[in-house]
């Protein structure tokens, strides 16, 4: 089976700044993988190299077996990778409903439709016509999640979804991740919140200084040792 996302010794740059120093990993269909690490180690840069925002200098990044050569921002989504970006990136002058419809741009049909998503997020249904930025932080995160699902992705990438959210809402995120995984969708969860990681991933990799420095499975995970890796 081809991996949804596969990095082979990827070195990535912003201009001349060398950020990723040989990152390799693969996410197989249906897998739930977490990528953890402190601020500034290059987690978002992993996502940005899929988007063409960071330049891949050497090594290969593949989506569904296809090597990315000068990807554009829309390439990943069109190949089935939906990204909930760090900071959510809700388009402010669109309504909530329009933001959701925007997520359907890749045109892939599947379980997720406007109806199923509005059923999953009642708050979005209530306020479908108000601007996306009229929502609270937690609600915006739900909107970003719903919008990503509109594309019926094979893999959902979440970049620090718990950032700035109250613990109750982090629980909601975990529930939704479970529902998404139940559809057979792979998940790449970039997180620093270990309780979310424990509930939403089966496998993890730890990043430091642009490299993946250790990997393991959730079973028999030593949380204390992990904390040492990501504590600020």
């Amino acid at each position: 089976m081809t991996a949804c996302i596969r990095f082979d010794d990827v070195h990535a740059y912003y201009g001349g700044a060398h950020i990723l120093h040989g990152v390799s990993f693969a996410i197989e269909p249906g897998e739930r993988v977490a990528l953890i690490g402190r601020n500034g180690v290059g987690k978002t840069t992993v996502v940005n190299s899929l988007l063409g925002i960071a330049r891949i200098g050497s090594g290969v990044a593949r989506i569904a077996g296809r090597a990315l050569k000068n990807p554009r921002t829309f390439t990943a989504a069109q190949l089935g990778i939906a990204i909930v970006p760090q900071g959510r990136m809700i388009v402010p002058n669109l309504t909530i409903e329009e933001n959701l419809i925007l997520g359907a741009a890749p045109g892939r049909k599947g379980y997720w439709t406007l109806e199923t998503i509005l059923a999953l997020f009642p708050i979005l249904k209530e306020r479908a016509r108000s601007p996306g930025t009229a929502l609270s932080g937690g609600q915006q995160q739900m909107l970003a999640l719903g919008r990503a699902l509109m594309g019926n992705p094979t893999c959902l990438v979440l970049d620090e979804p718990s950032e700035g959210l109250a613990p109750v809402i982090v629980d909601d995120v975990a529930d939704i991740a479970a529902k998404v995984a139940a559809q057979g969708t792979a998940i790449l969860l970039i997180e620093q919140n270990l309780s979310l990681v424990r509930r939403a991933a089966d496998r993890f990799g730890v990043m430091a200084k642009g490299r993946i420095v250790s990997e393991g499975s959730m079973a028999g995970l030593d949380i204390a040792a992990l904390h040492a890796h990501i504590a600020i």
Partner: protein
Amino acid sequence: MIIQLLNGLVYGGLLVILSSGLVLIFGLRQVVNFAHGAFYTLGAYVALSVSAFVGFWGALAAAFVALSVVGIALDRFCFRPLQNRPHAVVLIITFGLFLIVTDLVQLVWGRESYSLLPPPDFTGPVDVFGTPYPVYRLVVLALAVVAAVALQAWLRLTRIGLHARAAATDIVATGIQGVNTDRVGALVVGVGCGLAGLAGAAAAPLLALTPSMGDAIIIDSFVVMVIGGLGSFGGSIVAAALLGQIQAFGAVYMPSLTTLLPFVLMAAVLVIRPTGLAGARIS
């Protein structure tokens, strides 16, 4: 009185078409297209050249299509590759393009002035509240209204319009959702430039065609765009209507000052609202 009012509406209508194109392009690429006035001129000349073969309405469509193609090329070979350069660089390049297109018009059509006849059904005057008024001017006004409504309908009611509005706000976020923002950019800039061509063709029967016919009106549409708040369709429609009336009445009552009036209006608006009528207040 009524004549001036109508003249103002007609001129305001042309300004609406022109500045809508500027606003479209500005929204997506954050660039003011300094070649827009030359595109207006080019549209008029294209209409002049093809009207003998396809008739006036065909010429209008041809001007729109021809300038849309120019716009698509402009986005593909200028705006998109230079996306990450300072806006000043791109602005200067569109100024260079203004020089090139103006000179090309001179090379192809020469410097003498031409005139284009309105379509045969719309040549005479019509009675407006007891005053005869050239009917073609009302056609231009209707055309402007249709163009503005069609543009808004396209932006508000279609999927591509949604993508264009999203991309105009946040092109990266829109791309991440899987919208081909390259294609949207080309389309939007194409339509924007096409509107300039359309305005030029529509205006052609109202005045003499010369290579510099776009200079005056493009200045007014810049003023409209600034007063309206740069990226706002609503703001620029209001500003265009206002400026149209000022120009029309000024031409009669203060002929020596008409050229200064737009600037006075602009200064007044900017002193009260530095970001324009529809612009957000800067704290």
